[in-house]
């Protein structure tokens, strides 16, 4: 497609830790090359300069937790040709979505002396609950190589190649011995989407689910295996309730054990 200008990239932040947008600045070897191919038109964490929209590609970090942000995401969508969400906050509501299982008023009063000053919603929700999202990049944090792949794919009008299979496949590819089979270490790898490179098993610990549920995860079976390994029900519930607690398969699995 013919373009009059370099494609314009915008980076937007909602409730988050900044780690996923930092991943772009962490591309130390590639950042200047990326900046040659596209115009970094709106990226407040990195630049004072703001180029007016519309933007060809918007990367959105963070979840929706305030009435103001619930409005603002619609403005971002209107100004963006493609909108890609990056990280567990944007794709699943993040760790702050733990409030969704409790009472936000109670949370408020624990942290703030005068809760009436705080504007917040009862739930922390992913961006796709509010606007159409062209692509979701998983991870807490995202993998910077996958981020480059997504940017490159959108620049060239193709689908990003980010496999939806499990962390187990990455362990096999790395030649990492299965920590659950060999050492009896509880691991969320069988139900968690690949993308991190199976770091935890390589460091002798079980996967704790940063990339959220894989395609068609069998969480019930994994829970059973964890129980055989001696994991208690409260521990099992909390394992599914971390950074991707409100991703549907993880939320449902944790609720099954809460009800039983």
């Amino acid at each position, binding site marked *: 497609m013919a373009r009059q200008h370099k494609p314009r990239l915008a980076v937007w*932040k*909602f*409730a*988050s*830790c*900044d*780690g*996923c*947008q*930092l*991943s772009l*600045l*962490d591309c*130390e*070897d590639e*950042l*200047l090359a990326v*900046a040659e191919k596209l115009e*970094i038109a709106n*990226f*407040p*964490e*990195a*630049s*004072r*300069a*703001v180029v007016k929209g519309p933007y060809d590609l918007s990367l959105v970090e963070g979840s929706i*937790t*305030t009435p*103001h*942000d619930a409005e603002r995401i619609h403005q971002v969508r209107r100004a963006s040709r493609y909108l890609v969400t990056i990280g567990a906050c944007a794709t699943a509501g*993040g*760790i*702050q979505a733990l*409030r969704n299982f409790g009472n936000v008023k*109670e*949370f*408020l009063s*624990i*942290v703030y*002396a*005068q809760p009436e*000053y*705080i*504007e*917040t919603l009862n739930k922390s929700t992913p961006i796709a609950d509010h606007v159409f999202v062209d692509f979701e990049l998983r991870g*807490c*944090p995202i993998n910077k190589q996958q981020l480059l792949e997504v940017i490159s794919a959108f620049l060239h009008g193709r689908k990003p190649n980010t496999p939806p299979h499990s962390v187990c496949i990455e362990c096999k590819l790395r030649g990492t011995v299965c920590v659950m089979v060999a050492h009896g270490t509880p691991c969320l790898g069988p139900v968690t989407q690949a993308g*991190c490179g199976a*770091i*935890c098993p*390589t*460091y*002798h*610990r079980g996967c*704790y689910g*940063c990339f959220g549920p894989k395609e068609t995860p069998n969480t019930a079976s994994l829970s059973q295996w964890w129980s055989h390994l001696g994991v208690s029900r409260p*521990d099992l519930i*909390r394992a599914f309730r*971390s950074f991707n607690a409100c991703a549907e398969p993880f939320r449902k699995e944790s609720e099954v054990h809460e009800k039983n």
Partner: protein
Amino acid sequence: MRKTNSSSKSETIKVDCLARVEGEGSLYVRVREGRVVDVKFKIFEPPRFFEALLRGRNYSEVPDITARICGICPIAYQMSSCHAIEDALGIIVGGPLRALRRLIYCGEWIESHALHVFMLHAPDFLGYADAIQMAKDHSGVVQRGLQLKKAGNELVTLLGGREIHPINVRIGGFYKVPARSELGPVAERLKWAREAALETLRWAAHLPFPAIERDYEFVALRHDSEYPFNEGRIVSNKGLEIDVRDYDAHFLEEHVSHSNALHCLLKGRGAYLVGPLARYQLNFDQLSPWVREAAREAGLGPACRNPFQSIVVRSLEILYACDEALRIIEEYQMPESPAIEVQPRAGTGYGCTEAPRGILYHRYQLDDAGVIVDAKIVPPTSQNQKMIEEDLWQLASQSLQLPEDQLAWQCEQAIRNHDPCISCATHFLKLHVERD
């Protein structure tokens, strides 16, 4: 985004979205009849309630969860939470495991300081909107900055598994520790980084600095024999010297009328500053002799009270962190076990470590099963917020003759001087979104 609006009598400088800071904040300065009458450094980042969501979690999950407060300094959160919980459990991590914790912290200082020095702060001094624009004219400087940052990230990745939200830190130590031979390649890279840091220090020393001297009360950790990372007493240049567990008795959060954010104050004394300037003055004698010499060559005395020169002190701390990392690697012996045995018990623990931006205080109360009953986290940016506003009062008052856009830029810069991390501060700060 940036608005100034003036009549013959009054003038308002507003920056609705501060750039090149981690997180979202805004700046508001009001001038009437040639006098600054109001200053607000506001934070409108949404709260995430970490202290609340930690309740009911097992002690072992805390370092993984608190890391998510900040993508830029996750190690600081992991270190403060580990030390606080270990305090509650009555264990002390020593020997090579202690050294490895210091080593991974060196990596975070290098990575975080390099990000700030080159990508967030330097463009202000050289008149660019960002580091990418700056790279067009100062390619060598920006490349050096990126590679320095990479050296820090490589160290964190080796010990932590990845640079953002590392997975290898746990209560009692690590999941896996490196063999001596695994540290070889990163040591080679750090030798280059140490040279690059020295060049950076010399370069930073010659940037143009506005003349301003502030009479700060500096607060930092101080340790008997080392420049502080994970341990020490909390001291100030104005007579404070307390144990970490006495933090709550000496510091408080105040609700001030001109802002709806909670400001940290020293009881009976007021605003204080944490971060590189504070660490430097309070621990100058703990720097290795040749790092002290490099400081002198760069024109730094044993104290630096010009906040704009924090870029020089940060560069010096990059140099120190590279040098210290190399010393630790040189002396490293692989421990027999990656972590010491931990048994849960009821108790309250306190931890304070030196995040790149200053002291980070954590306090946890555990029940006898090791479940978190109560948590308190005080990040450096909330401690600095009041002092940042005081900087703005002084700077705006003495720079009123500047054209409006330059004055606005200088005020923004005055905030960036302290590398505020708003994502960190917000789960703690009181917010009120004032819509203009």
